[in-house]
């Protein structure tokens, strides 16, 4: 009987291979160890996935757990208004992206957000606080859609894949803020070093995108 994997799916923190068999029935086979929601798998864990394309796609799904975490996705909105909090409610005060993603006159991002978190006022901050451009929206998109746009220089700020790795691994300002959000805000899963390693491994393995059905 032939067995062929058709997609990777996540259930909680567990990544499984959904296996379709020749009998027409499917089964799920765990291939990665379980991790808590605030952790990331190590790159080495993905060696359990034998097929290189599936391994690459699985690495991106893991990266998407960071990309779609509210700490990151809140400023990659689908529209002109950023979100805030783990519930991703519209930003208060009501702000709009403006022509350059930095707000409009009188309501510029840096009118309130400083270059660092403010503990007492609870205003988050990092250098050059601003919204991701509209073409880099992540909210409401599947990991595959985000994967495709991240690989597209027309929608990723003209970056090469090497520059994508560098940006995610070493930008200590807005990217790094995702793991240092201040006050009692929940950070993105894992840490930036792990995330950078996952993105690098994804690129090294061919930068494959997961199938459309896959969710983080």
């Amino acid at each position, binding site marked *: 009987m032939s067995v062929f994997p058709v997609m990777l799916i996540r259930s909680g923190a567990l990544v499984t291979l959904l296996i379709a068999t020749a009998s027409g029935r499917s089964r799920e086979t765990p291939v990665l160890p379980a991790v808590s929601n605030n952790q990331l798998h190590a790159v080495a864990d993905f060696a359990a996935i034998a097929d290189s394309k599936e391994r690459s796609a699985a690495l991106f799904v893991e990266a998407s757990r960071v990309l779609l975490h509210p700490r990151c996705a809140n400023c990659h909105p689908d529209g002109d208004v950023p979100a805030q909090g783990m519930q991703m409610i519209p930003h208060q005060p009501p702000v709009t992206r403006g022509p350059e993603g930095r707000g409009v006159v009188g*309501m510029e991002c*840096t*009118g309130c957000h400083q270059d660092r978190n403010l503990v007492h006022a609870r*205003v988050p901050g990092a250098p050059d606080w601003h919204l991701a451009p509209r073409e880099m929206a992540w909210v409401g998109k599947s990991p595959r859609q985000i994967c495709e746009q991240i690989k597209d220089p027309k929608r990723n700020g003209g970056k090469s894949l090497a520059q994508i790795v560098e940006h995610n691994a070493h930008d200590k300002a807005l990217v790094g803020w995702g793991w240092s959000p201040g006050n009692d805000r929940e950070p993105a899963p894992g840490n930036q070093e792990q995330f950078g390693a996952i993105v690098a491994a994804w690129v090294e393995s061919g930068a494959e995108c997961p199938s459309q059905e896959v969710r983080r």
Partner: protein
Amino acid sequence: MSITIRVNGKDRQLDVDPEMPLLWALRDVLGLTGTKYGCGEALCGACTVHLNDHVVRSCVTPVSRAANAEVVTIEGLSPDGNHPLQKAWVELGVPQCGFCQAGQLMTAAALLKKHPRPSDEQIDQSMAGNLCRCGTYTRIREAIKKAAGVGQ
């Protein structure tokens, strides 16, 4: 720590903690009490001032950010209260209690500097962060239009 700030056209030397909110420096050290403390969390806009021509909430702006920079407060908006917005504010009787109005005026002044003839949408977007518990929003909008000479 000594910090030099140009406030309303005059260089001021401040010997304060660099983390002191700019609002504290303006009100408690320099005696410029026209700028108000509202929420302390950048949510209401009562403390709005201009920093190098940008609108900032002075309650959350460390005074160190204003070092060697130009700060304009409501006291410096015009030499004798004759800014077009101030005149329109008086003519239309905009304020009720008045507490938020310095912030409203500073944001409106920045808006008109960038957009001398603002649309309703531009007014709404720029003024959205300045709260008024008396609900004078319609008069604020009318006064901005009057000062700009649009949509009367």
